[in-house]
């Protein structure tokens, strides 16, 4: 049996599969269920200062097996009430990563500090929500802002800080470099890809917010490209996210440079059992490949590929 354990910036994971933020992440019982299903760790819903109801419905549009478009609007119970949910998950032994979002560096740092006090193993900064004004990607596509926010958080908490980056930019590697420079312990990529769906009969966008973010199998190539480009520019570990639902997807992300991965949409497509399946299948796949430790493969596609294959593109 191949060894799936990974060290993510000092956090020991029993396997590389983390629950992605925003999926099954509002309630402690759900986080606990994901951990029980075999995840290597669970990332909370992105938490803000105040409770937030998010946008009115419709908030999700589904495409036949290849993706979702969502504009939830960052609903969350707020930092006051959310710690009780983390406590439930931690009570069950879950490794919890806390996710936060904010309007500026100070708010990020405050929230990070408060979440850190709940016993989470690491913090993920949501610098990348594609559909919330003044939050997320609006800040997150500017390397200067990314650096400032990461620096503010790193100064305030002792936990590893993971900067979650947006693909809605021409140069995600520059964002990763900014995060690294600021002392982030890792970066995760990608958040959703900006998209829109329209109902032609009603002549209007189907999501109440209009613009949303695409997730699921359709964005796997985009996520792989981002991880690939980031791997060529930074030395801190990368967490791959986007369209992962089968062990093979995860393996591709690892080969592109990811040390761990997050699983979101697949939880809805496949059910929470996907976590157990992913770990089992990845282990057998590695055995078949004659690889004893997953971590030996991190970034291996950069080393094996021929001349033309590594050429970086804009």
């Amino acid at each position, binding site marked *: 049996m191949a060894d799936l354990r990974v060290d993510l910036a000092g956090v020991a994971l029993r396997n590389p599969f983390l629950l992605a933020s925003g999926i*099954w992440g*509002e309630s402690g019982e759900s986080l606990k269920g994901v951990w029980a299903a075999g995840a290597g760790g669970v990332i909370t819903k992105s938490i803000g200062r105040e409770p937030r*109801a998010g946008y009115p*419905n419709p*908030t*999700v549009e*589904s495409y036949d097996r290849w993706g979702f478009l969502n504009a*939830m609007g960052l609903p969350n*119970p707020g930092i006051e009430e959310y710690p009780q949910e983390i406590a439930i998950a931690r009570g069950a032994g879950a490794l919890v990563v806390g996710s936060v979002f904010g309007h500026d560096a100070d708010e990020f740092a405050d929230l990070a500090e408060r979440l850190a006090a709940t016993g989470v193993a690491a913090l993920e900064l949501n610098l990348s929500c594609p559909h919330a004004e003044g939050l997320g990607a609006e800040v997150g596509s500017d390397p200067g802002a990314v650096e400032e926010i990461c620096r503010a958080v790193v100064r305030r908490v002792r936990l590893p800080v993971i900067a979650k980056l947006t693909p809605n930019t021409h140069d995600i590697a520059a964002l990763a470099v900014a995060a690294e420079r600021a002392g982030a312990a890792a970066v995760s990529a990608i958040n959703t890809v900006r998209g829109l769906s329209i109902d032609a009969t009603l002549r209007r966008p189907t999501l109440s917010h209009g613009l949303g973010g695409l997730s699921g199998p359709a964005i796997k190539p985009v996520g792989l490209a981002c991880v690939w480009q980031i791997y060529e520019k930074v030395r801190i570990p990368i967490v791959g996210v986007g369209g992962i639902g089968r062990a093979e997807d995860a393996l591709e992300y690892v080969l592109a440079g990811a040390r761990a991965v997050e699983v979101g949409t697949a939880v809805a497509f496949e059910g929470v059992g996907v976590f157990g399946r992913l770990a089992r299948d990845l282990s057998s796949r590695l055995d078949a490949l004659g690889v004893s430790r997953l971590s030996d493969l991190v970034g291996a596609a950069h080393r094996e590929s021929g001349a033309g294959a590594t050429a970086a593109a804009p």
Partner: protein
Amino acid sequence: MRRIVTVSERVVETPSTVTLRFTDPTPARPGQFVMVWVPGVDELPMSLAYAGDPKGITVKVMGEASGRIQSISPGTLLGVRGPYGNAFDLSPRRLLAVGGGSGTAVLAPAIEALVERGGDAVAALGATTASELLFADRLRDAGAVVHLATDDGSAGAPGFVTGVVEGLLRHQTFDAVWTCGPEVMMRKVVLAGRTAGIPTFCSVERWMKCGLGLCDACALGPYHVCIDGPVFPGETLLAAPGFSEFYRDASGRRRPYARPSAPGPAAHGP
């Protein structure tokens, strides 16, 4: 995938509930729900009060969105996706169905289907007052024996319908009990079923956003009502943290159910 349907008929059922019918060929089973989009207003989970053709939803005014849905006139376009969730198991030979307020909406098509398959159904319906009793005639027409209760005693037994239920369980035998209504009411029904040794099945409501098992809005203990429910065995619910105690609002915050009846997803009961 979402379909756009045209409302073909609007029926005022009670002073606070209205049924909207529409043709939608997607197959559905009694107990399932659809996400109903009123463009420019909201998208809400609604049980299918009619699961065949034309489909129908029976809406109680709870707040802004349900108010807007209610006032919709024939010819209006709605977005519909689903059906989602599980259905009632139609195998019981002898059924007791307990509806609190508009909770009867989801029971009605299931009772009709069960009777059609040769089962016997007794229905106990409760409401605040006589005029709010839903689908009593529809269920009688379907062949069910109907018992009534009203808080103000204006029809049937005075008081909560749970009183009627306890009596029925003492004097008759059933293979199963179905119930839909406020969770405090359903809890009592489940406990009464436990005492009588009869399995209970509850259709529960939680705030919903995706309807797809993605967003966690509908979390009820370790379950997601949109994919694991809305129909749960009563014993499962008794063991689930939160049942009849709190629900989560749009932000995911826990909100207690006020007693005996309260605003909240399952508040449209007696």
